[in-house]
């Protein structure tokens, strides 16, 4: 393993205890709400923060071992750190920034070319757009020839317009790296797009680690389900007909799930597993909710609806074919296999 980390650190209202391993060329995303301890992990890896206890080894070299009183200062750890607001030096031009920590054998000009910022070499950094600033910051971090790359909310400083473009750029850059990358974000979609493995962190603890698809397929807790985009409905579960579990929802409805469960549960349903029809369909779905459309938002080629307590995502084509509009009564359906039961 190229990066191995173990740390314990007291924060204001909880103790962060994190353990993770990231292989060469792999990207690990720590996802969680703000204040969950994500940045603490990055600052510890970079040496900007000395944790209460911990151990960090990168490429076989020990950077931190509180037990053996090893704690290399940041300048002796080969990290590439992309700060949230990029932290470009305002007194230096673009090439001055990239050159700041460049390893002697790195061709800075070639790096500028690779990041398509060669034409900006002499530009002041405050004259750059958000996307350009990110490319400069990334080039600067990689010029150091780091053994590990740390990305702190790499897309948060961008407006929604440039975000998607920068995200796919970043994805390409990460795919070409042979070092481990640790990425921190509060946005599961960003994590899913950029990372091979995602750890959901809350109050300093990693609740679950899996591939993005694995997290969605089998969230281990209501928090993970809701964080990855599921709608949560609370209710009481009991064994029901056909070997299914019957859930009496607090909202007054009854739903069936293939997951086993008993007692208080949260029922998690992902919006893309909910289908919409005008009339009660004769299909394989066993769960149906007939309710008016509360809201309808277009997101590019998709439409996101709220029908009663459910969120649904359908293609823009289907929505216009059905002529869906706010206020109209429709039937939202999902299969028992899509109804995930999470004990409370």
């Amino acid at each position: 393993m190229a990066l191995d980390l173990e740390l314990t650190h007291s924060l204001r209202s909880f103790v962060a205890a994190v353990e993770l391993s990231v292989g060469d060329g792999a990207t690990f995303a720590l996802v969680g709400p703000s204040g969950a301890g994500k940045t603490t992990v990055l600052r510890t890896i970079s040496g900007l923060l000395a944790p209460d206890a911990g151990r960090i080894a990168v490429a076989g070299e020990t950077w931190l071992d509180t037990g053996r009183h090893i704690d290399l200062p940041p300048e002796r750890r080969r990290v590439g750190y992309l700060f949230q607001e990029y932290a470009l030096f305002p007194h230096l031009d673009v090439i001055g920034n990239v050159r700041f920590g460049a390893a002697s054998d790195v061709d800075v000009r070639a790096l500028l070319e690779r990041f398509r910022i060669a034409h900006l070499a002499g530009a002041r950094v405050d004259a750059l757009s958000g996307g350009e600033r990110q490319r400069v910051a990334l080039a600067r971090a990689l010029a150091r020839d780091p053994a590990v790359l740390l990305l702190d909310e790499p897309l948060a400083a961008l407006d929604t317009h440039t975000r998607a473009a920068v995200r796919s750029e970043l994805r390409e850059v990460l795919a070409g790296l042979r070092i481990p990358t640790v990425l921190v974000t509060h946005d599961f979609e960003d994590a899913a797009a950029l990372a091979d493995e995602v750890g959901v962190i809350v109050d300093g603890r990693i609740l679950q680690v899996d591939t993005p698809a694995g997290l969605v397929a089998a969230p281990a807790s209501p928090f993970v389900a809701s964080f990855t985009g599921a709608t949560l409905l609370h209710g009481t579960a009991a064994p029901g007909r056909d070997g299914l579990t019957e859930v009496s929802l607090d909202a007054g409805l009854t739903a069936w799930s293939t997951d086993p469960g008993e007692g208080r549960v949260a029922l998690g349903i992902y919006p893309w597993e909910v289908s919409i029809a005008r009339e009660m369909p004769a299909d394989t779905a066993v769960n149906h909710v007939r309710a008016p459309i509360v809201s309808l938002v277009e997101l590019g080629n998709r439409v996101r609806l709220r029908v009663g307590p459910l969120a649904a995502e359908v293609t823009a084509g289907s929505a216009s074919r059905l002529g869906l509009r706010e206020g109209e009564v429709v039937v939202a359906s999902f299969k028992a296999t899509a109804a995930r039961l999470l004990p409370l």
Partner: protein
Amino acid sequence: MPPGELVSALQSDVAKDALVVTFETNLIALALILLLGTPTAYWAATRRSRLRDLVVTLIELPLVLPPAVAGIGLLAAFGRLGLLGGTLDALGIDVAFNKVAVVLAVTFVASPFYVRTAVSAFEALDPTLPAAARTLGAGPGGVFFRVALPLAAGGLGAGAALAFARGLGEFGATIMFAGSLQGVTQTLSLAIYEQFDLDFDVALAISAVLVATSAATLLSVKLVTRWRSTSSSPIPSVASSPLSS
């Protein structure tokens, strides 16, 4: 008084000697203030501790001390019978009533103007910039010289100008600690005081020089501040720095 007479009044030996003494001692004092004050200010700006508060209070003390008290304090510390007098004597350094005394008095009185402005200039730096520099391989010294110093340069320049302007007019501590010997310790302010009774025209001419120099210094601070603030470097406003003396 016509400008011709003003110029000829400045040709007097008293005025010429005072000009030389003043600029010589003030430039040395400014160099001392920059060399000692800059690291101190950086240290104070990057620490949060009781010791830091104590040091800053000590540095600011001359701002509120009556000049006469400052003079007595310098005599008590560096005078022949003072705390450090014996040590300095043993080193062959005679302090009282010579140029060294003037430099000490000016440094003592003017340094807070620089250090306070410098502390706020360093404190205004975005803390992620030094952090970024560390992750890019710069040690603490590298962070200071390659990031903090260039980014705070505008504020430091403003502080240096204020300290210089304050030092030029220094009177109370100097006359008590260094005396008023023409060509040795008599600065422009001291010369004005002496010539006030002897030759009023000379006093007036020297005053005009001081007014012009001070105005030029303050004006240059404003210009530097404006020029720097159009760039992105953080600059503490000059108005917030201590102007009482």
